[in-house]
């Protein structure tokens, strides 16, 4: 089965979207990273024993809330969150394209993958 025009189009669209999101993620993390280093870089963090990241950096809601109050660690984490969400968005784009093609087998397949990803991102521990 060769690639049809619809699939080519959604591949191109997904590609552009990834490009855009990669730039966003890099900008968010880069800018806040510089700020983080300037303000608190000297009291070097200790990563040699595992204590886990701060509680507010562990959930989507927590990250967004703290980022909005301009916490620099949270803004860096927001950039990482954008990066984590890129594959989820890619799957969503292809799910939508299979839906438009009425390719039900692949609609189901993409939905399962999407479900696992959303479970991990929003629910799982």
């Amino acid at each position, binding site marked *: *089965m*060769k690639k049809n025009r619809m*699939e080519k189009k959604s*591949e*191109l669209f*997904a*590609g*552009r979207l*990834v*490009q855009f999101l*990669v730039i966003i*993620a*890099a900008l968010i*993390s*880069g800018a806040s*990273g510089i700020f*983080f280093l300037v303000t608190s870089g000297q009291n*070097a*963090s200790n*990563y*040699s024993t*595992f*204590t*886990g*990241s*701060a*509680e507010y*950096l*562990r*959930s989507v809601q927590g990250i967004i809330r703290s980022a909005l109050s301009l916490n620099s*660690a*949270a803004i*860096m*984490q927001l*950039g*990482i*969150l954008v*990066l*984590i*969400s*890129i*594959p*989820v968005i*890619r*799957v969503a784009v*292809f799910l939508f394209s299979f839906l438009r093609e009425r*390719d039900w*087998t*692949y609609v189901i*397949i*993409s939905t399962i*993958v999407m479900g*696992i*990803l959303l*479970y*991990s*991102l*929003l629910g*799982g*521990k």
Partner: protein
Amino acid sequence: LTGLVATGAIGAGLLGSLTGLGGGIVIVPLLTLALGVDIHYAIGASLVSVLATSSGAAAAYSREGFANIRIGMFLEIAATAGALTGTVITAFIAPKWVAVIFGLVMLHSAYMTFTSKVREISVEKPDRLATFLKMNSRYPSKDGLREYFIHSVPLGFSVMFLAGIISGLLGIGSGAMKVIGMDRIMKIPFRVSTATSNFMIGITAAASAGIYLSRGYIEPGLAMPVMLGVFAGSMAGARLLPKIKTRTLRIIFAISIAVIGIQMMIKGLTGNL
């Protein structure tokens, strides 16, 4: 420390895009062995490097290229389920065993780098499941579009589940294993396998990244320089790729991976990690 991590990540991104092995296999030993970072944080940062590699490559080529989205999506059911399983396993086993398994996987990757070869693509009749799943496709080659047929879907699916477990357990993309599954077992042409694998590793990594985020493994102070470094490294790598001979590079890389892999196992077993 941030500078060191970023420099290391640039190197990891460069090597990753030049040799076809993911950055994770470099990031974890760099952080744990060289910089003394706890293995949990290292796994979190490494997952971020896998995500950056996958998205960075997709952004560089601006589309999926040779990737077969249908195959990738179907196999991702197994890989993401495996990744979730892997994250559950990590919670129950001691870090030293994670280090030992990591060392074994590194040795295996090194071995694979030596033995990889180009195989004739299969023109035999496809199996029924592959046809039902509309996986057979064609790809552009020197002599125009060539058709290819997919085989052994159930076995390939099982290999992806295993690759997913390893990915979730160690925070690597296990791209090498995915390529083996597609190239050798399912008889997918090598270029299609590698492109599809790149599409897949990001999705597998995202499946475990969410869990690890909520467990506090992803520390922004480490993950941020890793992400930016891998972006920079893989972009530079994509530019350099046509200009240099990768054969020698692969051999050097395979040897160093084997050495570090053994070191990783020793440190794990003697409890110095």
